[in-house]
């Protein structure tokens, strides 16, 4: 079976993987952001928690999905 790919920003992606990645990372970002303790420095903590959540979600997708590119290396002459 042939998979279909789309080209976004110079590289190929699978539409389904792209949508799942978007949801996973966005969910994790907001999950952590809303978890941030409220207080005087709420904005700062909220931003830090959110950024952490974004990176956390990013790592989940890195482990869950494989990159959709072929990598070959030129042989030594």
């Amino acid at each position: 079976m042939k998979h279909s790919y789309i080209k976004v920003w110079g590289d190929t992606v699978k539409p389904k993987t792209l949508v799942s990645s978007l949801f996973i990372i966005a969910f994790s970002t907001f999950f952590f952001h809303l978890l941030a303790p409220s207080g005087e420095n709420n904005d700062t903590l909220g931003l830090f928690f959110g950024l952490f959540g974004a990176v956390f979600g990013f790592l989940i997708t890195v482990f869950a999905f494989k990159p959709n590119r072929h990598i070959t290396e030129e042989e030594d002459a």
Partner: protein
Amino acid sequence: MDPVLLIFMVGFALMAVILYTGIGFIPGTDETSVLMPITLALVLAGFEPVLILSFFIAAIVTLNLTNTMPTALVGLPGGVMSSAMIEHTLYIKANGNIAATIKKMAAASLIGVLIAVPVSLLLAQLLLPVADVISPLAPWLFVFGAIFLALISRHKILSLLSILPLAILFESLRALYWNLNIVPQDQTITVSFFLGITIGPLMFTLFNLLNKNIRSQETLEDKNTIVLPKDDKEKTSLNPLQVLNKEERSQLSLGALIVNTLFILSPVGLTILIGESFSKRHKDPLKKATMTVITMSAVIQATYISGIIIPLFALGIPLSPVAIGPGAALFNAPPVLSLDNNLHHLLSTTEFVVATIIGALVALSISYILISRYAKVITRFILKHIPHESVLGLFIAFILLLAFMDAGLINIFGVLLIGLFSGALNKMGVNFGVQFMALYAAPQLMQILAGG
């Protein structure tokens, strides 16, 4: 200066180097969206301004150097700036020795930083006496800046015509948020709006793909094939004076020197302009391509360094595309920093110079060696393990978060509106510089329109 603070400055610069070496090698990571949110987080966290400055300088130096690596090695631009050199690196890859060229690019980048730091500090010092005259004129300067950038862009009439609609869009969203009491009257939303501009082209593409007809046209049967070039067997010196010959050194140095005086212009535009026009005189296409990418590597560093140092040190208002975009958090990050109380006002001359030099030197000494030796190993690792989908998801999540924090749920859709509109304009040919300037000029433009 306090020695403890000096050690912390080195530490912050190191942190930036580690973080942005990783990000720089990931293809397609836009400079503004990776620099701005993290700098903003540090500012809001209340770290000392000197630490933030040395972090930021180390970050841009590292990012500009590492971004050129995936571009040269595998033909995927590491960021917006390095997309300028893509056709030339592809040519060298097909017809010449890309491994040797990469070492030259890294050396050129190093020289670019070493020229730009002292020159832009000097230029800023020269501008300082007239700063009091310039600063109150800022709203007008943004208006003229937008018109000026439109006039020197490739599509002049299109760009000119897009300024007012963009300004109306920004101001009407702000007015809406004030009216609905989502944002207090004395607060102006800027950060998430310009991230909306940055993400515009991506949003526009993704929305297009939701249309089935367009999607079936754009669908490919196979993945991208990426070819990693073979290694350069020769163990060459790391001394930039030996990596680059005299002709190369003089051309790139001249390029890096000139762009310092042109700091208000778009960095990508300048990089293309200087890189290509300086290399026109070479007849041999391979030599021409090599000279172009080397010059560009130096110019990229110089545009960023002068674009942040000169407005920050001399004026305190973001009067360059770099200051408006990636460096925005150093100028304006409510409630910690504002246009009347930012790094310009908080830092003494000595602090400013020391933080800049520490940031630049720490970044150069580490990333130059790392890249000259391990560019291919790092690129291979990133391409094998990091899906493009994750990178796109990370960006969009960053922007959703900042939009939400700026003005709640409604602003997520507000930023989407901006992204779609400015993305469409972008596809038509209105560059980021014009759009960013329109954002800053918007309040003044509305006053002119309403008054006239």
